């Protein structure tokens, strides 16, 4: 097996006296979809935020392509090709769809010594990317505040897919989506994975996880139950573990090998 693209070792994250993560290790491979599952408050969002540069881990190490990685802020992570759809989307309601789409990564065109925001290009790409996701926008200058929750989520996903050259992190991306859009997102995950992108997919829906996941890691109260590869675990077992580990005893055997 190839070396993982990202190796997160014993990640701990403390918020004051709260221990959100108490030592979580996960390997993420290029061309695979890694599903992160677990109860509310298990620490999934906190975990991916240490990977996307939002949080600095209190303890632990992140290796990216074999080398230690220290992101000062999300800008560094994005520059390294790691794009994230946060649970809270990171969209600005008063700004237009295309301004949101390119926020932090604006395309520029040079006129003499000056660099200007290339609005035409931004608008064109935004409309095209949104159409790929199955949403027809009224216009690229529509304010995000006027979009529905699902439309907003789709913009965030389309944006991350566009910028996530190496790693795509999706934190509950389908929570507000309709049937067609959800299918679209799952198909997109499958597509970018085949292009060699590493995908981290957080969801509460086992069927969605089973549909696209190559590996499954279940978090519970800041710790991991371990990682299982596709075929090593049934949907029913996964479901039980996500519920907080009832019947844990019977499940540990199937996971234990990879812990």
């Amino acid at each position, binding site marked *: 097996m190839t070396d993982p693209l990202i190796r997160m070792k014993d990640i701990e994250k403390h918020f004051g006296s709260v221990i959100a993560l108490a030592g979580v290790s996960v390997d993420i491979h290029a061309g695979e979809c890694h599903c992160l599952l677990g109860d509310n408050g298990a620490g999934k969002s906190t975990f991916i935020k240490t990977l996307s540069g939002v949080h600095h881990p209190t303890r632990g190490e992140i290796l990216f392509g074999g080398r230690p990685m220290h992101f000062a802020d999300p800008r560094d992570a994005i520059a390294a090709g790691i794009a994230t759809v946060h649970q809270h989307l990171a969209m600005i309601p*008063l700004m237009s769809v295309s301004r949101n789409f390119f926020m932090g990564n604006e395309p520029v065109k040079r006129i003499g010594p000056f660099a200007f925001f290339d609005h035409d290009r931004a608008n064109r790409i935004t*409309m095209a990317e949104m159409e790929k996701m199955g949403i027809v926008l009224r216009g690229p200058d529509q304010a995000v505040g006027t979009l529905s929750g699902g439309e907003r989520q789709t913009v965030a996903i389309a944006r991350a897919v566009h910028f996530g050259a190496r790693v795509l992190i999706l934190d509950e991306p389908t929570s507000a989506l309709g049937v067609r859009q959800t299918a679209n997102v799952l198909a997109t995950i499958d597509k970018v994975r085949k292009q060699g992108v590493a995908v981290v997919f957080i969801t509460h829906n086992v069927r969605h996880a089973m549909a696209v996941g190559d590996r499954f890691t279940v978090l519970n109260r800041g710790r991991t139950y371990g990682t299982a590869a596709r075929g090593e675990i049934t949907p029913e077992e996964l479901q039980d573990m996500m519920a907080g580990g009832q019947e844990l005893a019977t499940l540990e055997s199937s996971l234990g090998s990879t812990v």
Partner: protein
Amino acid sequence: MSDTPQVVQDERVKRISPFRRALIRPELGGIVGTVAVFVFFGLFAYDSGMFNSQGVMNWSVVSAQFMIIAVGACLLMIAGEFDLSVGSMIGFAGMMIAIFGVTMGWPIWIAILVTFALCLGIGALNGFIVVRTGLPSFIVTLAFLFILRGFTIFLPQVIERKTIIGGIGEAAEGDWLAALFGGKILGGLFRWLGEIGAIETFSRGTRQGEPVVDGIPMLIVWALGLVLVGQILLTRTRFGNWIFAAGGDAESARNSGVPVNRVKILMFMFSAFCATVFATSQVMEFGSAGADRGLLKEFEAIIAVVIGGALLTGGYGSVIGAALGALIFGVVQQGLFFAGVESSLFRVFLGVILLFAVILNTYIRRIITGER
């Protein structure tokens, strides 16, 4: 959008009337206000001298002063912060130029450059404290309002035993940098206009035959330049997008890779820069620096920005709008003077128009964000 590829027309959109489309522009209030103000004074004060060359120059200069600080306040407000220390900064910057240039006898251009560096540093400190502590900029800059005003009164008293330092006019004689703030341009054009009779000329005295208005003050050039640069920066550059994003939602902007802290600190510095431009022009015009200069300017700047359509909560606004807000200010303040109206009524006007502008802006925001 003409260049968007084969966009399927959305059947769920009602045609938006051009009127409503115009309504959801931040400049709307400024445009309507400007027209209203000119119509009003055109009807009621046309023969007061307000619209002859001297009168026009009079309110243009006052408007330009407002514009200079409004541009700084506008970009800062869109980035989600306030600067209440602008007025004190104006007094402080002017006093420092006087102390460096007159009391200490440095060449004026050095005095001006050192003052700019000092004030930009204070602006950066304002911003740094705000982004580091997460305190509201309202409080942090309120502290600097007092700190800077205190020094502006204290320093000249200790050094010169008075609160006004004069003699800047003589010290600045022939100085290249001082001319950039206190000089005038297009003198030749105005002389020619006077000769062909397009504008009034002095009919008596030592300056007989010379035009009453003999050039465009650099103050106006600065104002228009700052408005132009501000507008382009905000709407046409990557940094402009960061300004909107930082003020719209700092957390989301940060998570999307916008260097929010840098943007905010730079905008505090820009606000300080505008205040210092104002102060430098003012001391060059008056030939002196006074400890009470710039009083209440921060509020006037903020009101101009709000009339110009910016939201107090950040993330939305327009530099052109703020410039129109400043124009309304200048025209009304001087117009009331020309019309012989008691000047205290200007404050009543300010309060009323501020209230209207805020209500209009809130309404516009609801339309944009679709909230009810």
